[in-house]
């Protein structure tokens, strides 16, 4: 018999309570319990980055975190990136540069890019490529993603793109 845990956490700025099994991943709870399905499951072994979320502002894979660990912490998912109907500049630039095709990897890339630009507003191309090395995309060939990140960084720095 499984005893469910009651977890009190904050997701995208809102307090949330949920019940989970002790071994359940944050990813499964986000998608299946809380219906926040923007965060995607790719490999479930921490290799692809599709499930990237921020845990107290730090980039992590939701598949490599027990949901129980989120108690008292703050989680940011892709659903918390845009402001209402207004896309975040990172999202806007991914659209403008066509930095996606099938879209499965995109939420992870956007969250990982946010983590990078929050810390380093003016990364070099090499820094961007290394930072995003844990996010796999099988469609774009990455170049368009790099251009989108560079352009978003410019916008966020207040420079005209």
């Amino acid at each position, binding site marked *: *018999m*499984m*005893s469910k*845990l009651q977890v009190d956490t904050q997701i995208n700025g809102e307090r949330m309570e949920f019940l989970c*099994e*002790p*071994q359940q*991943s944050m990813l499964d709870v986000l998608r299946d319990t809380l219906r926040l399905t923007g965060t995607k499951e790719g490999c*479930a*072994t*921490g290799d692809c*980055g599709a499930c*990237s979320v921020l*845990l107290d502002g*730090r*980039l*992590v*894979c939701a*598949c*490599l*975190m*027990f949901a*129980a*660990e989120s*108690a008292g912490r703050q989680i940011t998912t892709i659903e918390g990136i845009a402001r209402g109907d207004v896309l975040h500049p990172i999202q806007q630039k991914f659209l403008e540069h066509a930095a996606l095709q099938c879209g499965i990897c995109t939420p992870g890339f956007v969250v*990982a890019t946010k*983590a*990078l630009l929050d810390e380093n507003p003016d990364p070099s191309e090499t820094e961007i490529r*290394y*930072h*995003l*090395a*844990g*996010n796999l995309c099988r469609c774009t060939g990455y170049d368009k993603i790099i251009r989108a990140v560079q352009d978003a960084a410019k916008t966020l720095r207040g420079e005209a793109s």
Partner: protein
Amino acid sequence: MQSFAYAAPATVAQTLAILAEHLGAGRRAQVLAGGTDLMVQMRTLDAGPRTIVDIKKLAETNRLDVGANEIYIGAAIPGAMLTASKPLVACLPGLVESIDLIGSSQIQGRASLGGNLCNASPAGDTISALVANSGICVIASKAGQREMPVEAFVVGVGKNALKPGEFLLGIKFKRPAKGTSDAYQRFIPRTEMDIAVAGVGVSVRLDAKGVCTAARVAIGAVAPTVILVPAAADALMGSKLDDAALDAAGRACTAAASPISDKRGTAEYRRKVVAVLCRRTAKQAADRARESQ
């Protein structure tokens, strides 16, 4: 039958009590730090029920202290936090590089030094750097704390020296003396995010004339465990790390290696590469030691 449970104790005493209680009842408990190995292993190798004992709430596993005499790194601190510590990077640049080489930005947000050590992979990148820097494991046990050199802690492939009911609190080092520095290099076929074909950690001390007065060389991914190679250190000692000394140290690493052949490289290739890495890593550590004079 045992079911899954999760506990996040707030003190070392509580943690030891939970581990002891499980041990006494014949139930399984497993310590969780960053979880980047544990959760993958639970999905791929062994999904059996257990109590997950999260040690990230403990002061002792989260403490990072770069003191005048001693450096202490809590076992559960994520790599990204260690890489961001300027005092730590200044004292043990090679160790920090060995951590930074592991996985992606996402993995760095969780993976810990203690976890990499306890997981005890032959190719664990931090382990060679820990051994080269004479790291000492600080272990919580029922009888109190006990300490053990890192090279004695790893006892086999995936096996460490923790007794049932014990767990790793952190790793401590003597603060490197003036003229002392370290380096870690590995070879992988890609530019990043891969497992070492071979890896070498080196710590050297140079006197004012540039003569090597202390050295430790550790090699990884070329034997069932990371191993200390005293013969390689002997080859460096008393030299100015000229080509002849570096070559001799490299040959000692080749001689000490007992690698396997797998998809990442043949045994013959690994024996050769470990010598090349030893030369390069020793040179890098020496360059840093000169800068710290």
